[in-house]
């Protein structure tokens, strides 16, 4: 055997190699760790930037006024910074979007998960994915150029910039999110449950409504919540089609700015770095971040719960 007379020197060079190799391995692992930790850095940076720019803003405007005032007029001589004027627009467009997206998305999910043939599902899923990839600026174009004119034919007094058209298009945009997330959670329901229902003589519809939907309900609700978060943070559709005038209103046929479209409209203008206008978009952004963060945490908690059940 070649190793039966292994000279001492070979062993010692091997050990030296081990040492070099170990250092290399450690360095690589450290570099990879840094890349992964970069995600933590980004989160911290987001919070730091928003908070550090919002602090001087809140030295001018009290948090109480910020949260209770319903007028947002940063460009007028008497300046008001009541975020409610922006939140009302955000909530209204989000609500309209949900009215459209929740029924359509849920029906699509149930159909694809429980009714559709394998072939239909395999065709529909990629189409949904393609729709998720459509840039929102294009949806904004649809809202302003196609949907609003259509709505004006039904209701002639509708202004060109209105929350209704923007909300409807936003709803169409988030249907694929709801459909694909809800479908995932329905497919995760074990086959044995379906078999149990069918064995008792239930039809497809009964199985879908009485057995599968309740079993997957937390996943479906999580899908809704993540969709709300998506709608709240959506920017281009509302910036293009809902108008950019901050108005405290929940009337969908009016135009109003949302948190996101306010940020865009300020960013498009001349931005005085360090001015209160500049700081106000960070205060608005912080509000938006907190809203979406709460929604995302809620969504993830509900989703985790349903994952644990099976």
């Amino acid at each position, binding site marked *: *055997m*070649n*190793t*039966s007379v*292994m000279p001492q020197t070979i*062993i010692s060079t*091997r050990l030296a190699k*081990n040492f070099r*190799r170990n250092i290399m391995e450690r360095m690589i692992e450290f570099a990879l760790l840094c890349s992964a930790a970069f995600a933590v850095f980004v989160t911290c940076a987001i919070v730091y930037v928003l908070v550090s720019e919002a602090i001087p803003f809140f030295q001018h405007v009290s948090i109480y006024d910020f949260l209770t005032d319903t007028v947002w007029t940063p460009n007028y001589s008497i300046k008001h910074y009541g975020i409610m004027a922006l939140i009302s627009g955000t909530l209204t467009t989000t609500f309209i979007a949900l009215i459209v997206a929740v029924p359509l998305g849920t029906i699509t999910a149930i159909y694809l998960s429980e009714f559709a043939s394998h072939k239909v599902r395999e065709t529909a899923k990629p189409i949904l994915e393609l729709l998720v990839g459509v840039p929102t600026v294009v949806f904004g174009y649809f809202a302003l150029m196609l949907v609003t004119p259509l709505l004006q034919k039904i209701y002639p007094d509708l202004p060109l910039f209105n929350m209704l058209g923007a909300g409807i298009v936003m709803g169409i945009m988030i249907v694929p999110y709801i459909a694909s997330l809800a479908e995932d959670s329905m497919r995760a329901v074990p086959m044995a449950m379906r078999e149990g229902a069918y064995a008792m003589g239930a039809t497809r519809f009964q199985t879908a409504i009485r057995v599968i939907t309740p079993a997957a309900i937390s996943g479906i609700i999580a899908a809704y919540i993540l969709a709300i978060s998506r709608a709240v943070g959506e920017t281009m559709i509302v910036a293009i089609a809902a108008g950019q005038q901050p108005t405290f209103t929940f009337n969908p046929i009016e135009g109003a700015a949302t948190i996101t479209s306010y940020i865009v409209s300020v960013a498009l203008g001349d931005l005085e770095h360090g001015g209160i206008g500049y700081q106000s978009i960070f205060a608005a952004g912080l509000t938006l971040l907190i809203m979406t963060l709460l929604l995302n945490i809620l969504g993830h908690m509900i989703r985790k719960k349903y994952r644990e059940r099976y």
Partner: protein
Amino acid sequence: MVMHKNKHNETIKAEAKNLNFFYADGTQALKGVTLPIYENKITALIGPSGCGKSTFLRSFNRMHDLYPGNKYEGEIILYPDNTNILSKKVDPIEVRMRISMVFQKPNPFPKSIFENVAYGLRVRGESNKRVLDDKVEEALKGASLWNEVKDRLEDLAFNLSGGQQQRLCIARALATDPEIMLFDEPTSALDPIATMNIEELMSELKKKLSILIVTHNMQQAARISDYTAYMYLGELVEHDDTNKIFTNPSKKETEDYITGKFG
């Protein structure tokens, strides 16, 4: 250098001494196993599922180190240099370079046939094309696969049949001149002809190195091995000459298992 021999004047290549093994969840899979592996011999491990024979085998190239929380107690001494390969001071990679392994299911890499065999050499820093060519050819010949694949070394290994894939894995393990080869039920996923090929191959291989094999198939153990060890519930029940184990075992449990009364 002191040679460790048995009464038949056979050299001991490696020896497990009072080996205990604990998985991360705390279950003890090996209980005080002491077992010698003889040079140029085939030692077969038999026993019912879950008896710890695969766990024992995988201790020999420190496979358990890949999963955190696993713990060894006791020693596996590799001769002639008297290294305890379970020692914390010994790099598991060095152990794997001396002791190679063939798995239950053929697991070639999704690379070319050539690259599969050459991989162990590349890991050792060998990049000379001439050396690689020679070594790959030698290993494939050693695994009696050369004639079947010599014209398509660049083909994807997945395109080979199951038996060929397993022989490719043997060639891969062979290319690095290991001192011991471990076989973990190498034929359980193969048809009878492929199984026969691999058994013949092992009898050929033992001229150059020592073999430790786990097998479910008692006929296989009887056919190919020189020594057989019967394990049950993590303990070594009996270890002896294969002939003796299969004709005249000294323990009742062994006899029951071999005659099919149990297991």
